């Protein structure tokens, strides 16, 4: 069965997702078990795929038994395996976490089995986008992940969630259609849809205007999905109003996969040689957008009073880092980007999980509301703090490693002016997280201020009332992983290096 792993990775979650509403008729918890176990299986398969790649190199699987480019090829190399592990792990953590979270954020019992179905379809679409080697197949899977994503966002309790989902749907569909149009141009010029075959046939057309147009439409389409500044408008409201578990999993996986597809298109379908033929300097455009995203995201995050929206804007900034590494076009930069993919998945996952736990206990998510929570919810808030520190890029966290690589890559390619920008945005990040950490650990809870004037001996110790274990464990595990990969960075760095070397050979 090892041979069939690339197919099983997608087919198992797909079929379980389809069965979930049926078994959910007995009791909704059964659908939770189904989804948790399935995402775990996907995680194990991803690990096995990485192991297989390290033994035998690139894996190619022929769907329906047709040799590429005639049939659809599924291919796995270090890059795919790396992203697969991130996506499937975060989906698994999200599945465990969701059980209690949807009690308060979705409530309605009849919706729960369908929530799990769509959650799993979302994961299936994302995993498929990562593992497929056919550019039209990416489009179909992108639409599955997107449709599922729109529906998940619309589940948010406030009515603004519906408007956010609608706007995301409109922008997302425009993006996907641009992608489809670009693929059409590629097909018209080359006659093939297989990514490996495209890479072989494209160079002779690099000079043509049609191929540049194809590139432009594909990249703009993906940029909408990735929410690269200035195409990020859908993101803050979507993440802000969706149920917490949805925000967490989307921020941790959806954007990562869009970034992966962008990397694939820029470096596997096209090659760095293409960028010397373009009428504009693509590298500079990307660098400018990345810098703008980093700064605008950080500044907008400062202005927010709602934590979820703050985290959403901070995502815009973090996506800027990923784009920065992609645009630098050297191995170190690509490594920085890839490590930042992992890094941001873990940090944002942990942060949104922690916010979800707060919502579970208090029902509110404004920054004011967090006062004194450090004593009430020590584990959750510890996880939040670790992730926030990693976000600012303090040494010993994984956030430091990715920023380090990005800074080194900027100097390597002679763009030293990027280093102060990275530093500045780290400071801004520290500022907007300090507001929260200050509230959490140093300020008393809203009801306790009056006691401060009384005698110290009368003050009772605050009872710890942390979120349920099924929420705390995934939150804390993901946060601790930020530290683990910060201290023992060898594993992600070595995989990222191998992936970057393949891309930029």
């Amino acid at each position, binding site marked *: 069965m090892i041979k*069939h792993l690339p*197919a099983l990775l997608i*087919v198992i979650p*797909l*079929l379980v997702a*389809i*069965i979930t*509403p*049926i078994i959910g008729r007995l009791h909704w918890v059964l659908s939770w078990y189904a989804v948790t176990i399935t995402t775990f299986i996907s995680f194990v398969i991803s690990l096995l795929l990485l192991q297989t790649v390290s033994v035998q190199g690139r894996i190619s*699987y*022929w*769907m*329906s*038994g*047709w040799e590429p*480019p*005639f*049939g*659809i090829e599924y291919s796995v190399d270090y890059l795919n395996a790396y992203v697969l592990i991130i996506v499937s792990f975060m989906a698994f953590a999200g599945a465990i976490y969701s059980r209690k979270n949807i009690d308060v954020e979705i409530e309605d019992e*009849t*919706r729960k089995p*369908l929530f799990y*179905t*769509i959650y799993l*379809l979302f994961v*299936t679409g994302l995993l*498929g986008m990562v593992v497929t080697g*056919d550019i*039209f*197949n990416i489009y*179909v*899977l992108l*639409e*599955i992940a997107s*449709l*599922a994503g*729109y*529906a998940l966002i*619309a*589940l948010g*309790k*406030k*009515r603004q969630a519906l408007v956010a989902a609608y706007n995301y749907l409109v922008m997302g569909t425009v993006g996907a259609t641009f992608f489809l149009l670009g693929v059409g*141009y590629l*097909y*018209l*010029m*080359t*006659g*093939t*849809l297989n990514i490996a075959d495209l890479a072989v*046939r494209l160079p002779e057309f690099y000079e*043509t*205007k*049609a191929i*540049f*147009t*194809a590139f*432009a*439409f594909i990249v703009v389409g993906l940029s909408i999905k990735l929410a690269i500044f200035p195409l990020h408008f859908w993101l803050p409201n979507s993440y802000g109003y969706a149920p917490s578990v949805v925000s967490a999993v989307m921020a941790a996986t959806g954007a990562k996969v869009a970034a992966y597809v962008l990397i694939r298109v820029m470096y596997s379908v096209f090659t760095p040689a293409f960028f010397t033929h373009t009428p504009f300097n693509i590298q500079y455009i990307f660098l400018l957008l990345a810098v703008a995203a980093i700064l605008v995201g950080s500044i907008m995050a400062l202005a927010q009073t709602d934590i979820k929206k703050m985290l959403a804007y901070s995502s815009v900034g973090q996506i800027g880092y990923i784009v920065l590494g992609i645009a630098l076009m050297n191995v170190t930069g690509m490594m920085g980007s890839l490590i930042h993919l992992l890094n941001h998945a873990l940090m944002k996952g942990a942060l949104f999980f922690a916010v979800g736990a707060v919502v579970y206990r208090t029902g509110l998510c404004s920054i004011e509301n967090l006062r004194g929570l450090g004593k009430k919810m020590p584990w959750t808030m510890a996880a939040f703090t670790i992730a926030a520190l990693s976000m600012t890029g303090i040494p010993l966290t994984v956030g430091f490693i990715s920023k380090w690589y990005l800074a080194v890559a900027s100097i390597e390619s002679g763009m030293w002016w990027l280093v102060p920008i990275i530093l500045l945005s780290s400071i801004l990040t520290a500022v907007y997280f300090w507001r929260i950490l200050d509230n959490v650990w140093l300020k008393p809870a809203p009801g306790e201020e009056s006691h401060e004037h009384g005698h110290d001996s009368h003050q009772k110790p605050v009872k710890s009332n942390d979120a349920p274990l099924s929420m705390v464990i995934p939150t804390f595990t993901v946060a601790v992983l930020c530290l683990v990969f910060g201290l023992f960075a060898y594993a992600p760095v070595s995989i990222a290096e191998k992936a970057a070397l393949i891309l930029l050979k």
Partner: protein
Amino acid sequence: MTDLAIPLFLVVCGIAVLLVKDLMSSIMIFSVYSLMMAIEWCRLNAVDVAITEAAVGAGISTVLFLVILGRTKSVDEGKKHINLPALLITVAVAAVLLYGTIDLPHLRDASIAPNTHVVTPYYLENSYEQTGQINVVAAILAYFRGFDTLFETTVVATAGFSLIMLLRAGNKKPGALDKTGVTAIYKKTPASIGVKPTATFPAVLDQDKDIVKRTVTKFLIPFIQLFGLYVIVHGELGPGGGFQGGVVLGVSIIIYSLVFGFEEAKQRLSVRTKDLLVSTGVLVYGGIGVIALFLGGNYLQYSVLLPDPQFASIVGIMGVEIGVGITVAAVMITLFYETVRIDAND
């Protein structure tokens, strides 16, 4: 001259759709637009695509738009001033497109890459030998690129599930939302800015008493369903396939419930059974792939299903087409049932 007439008519319709003030007219023009598009594709020999567009664009989409329109306010009140940022973006996109078109190859030329690169000639040569299909479109759809089609069916199922989740379960009585404390404050606001919620769409709930309609419908439905089944299984020989057939089957139930009322239709096809069917179709499709895995082939490699590879392919393709048909029909009915049920509970 017809070479130009239909495309020009398309352009006129496309622009009119967005210029017309009245939403109802806009939807009707869109329906005509879809139909013209189908005719244009027929003229371009893309028969399968044309049938699908006629069924989906001109048929299902229009019905869906009308149902939703009936449930909301019906006049497009937006002032028609020019939106400058939108115009600028549109002009930029048009400029890039024009730039890219300059060195695109001429259409209708047999020597352009899609026709000469190995892929398409391979399909044309091997369609019958390897898959037993005379209609090459069906061979590619269900076998050469069968994995795409599995996910195409999944997209339809995803839409079906989303619809059920968002409409059915979220369909509480207006007062029920108050206890969360979130929506209560919104209660007054629509009226305060001068919006009057208008008539719903009661017609679809009651049965139609017109004897002519009832008799004609009763007489027609078996034929429509037979035609749907025919389209599903006929895909190997000529245009048609699971998707188109599924739409036709779904429409037969929709017509039934339009004429005989929703309650009556529910007795023929209960909501629970229909929900089950949405899953069943994808399961059939995916299941055939899994059987192929156990018989030693790759996923969805039908040729291993039976000793004779060509016959096995025909059987496999037939199986997945039926799977597609079931899911598509069930989702088409879902579109209708769920949008109508909201009224029923109001």
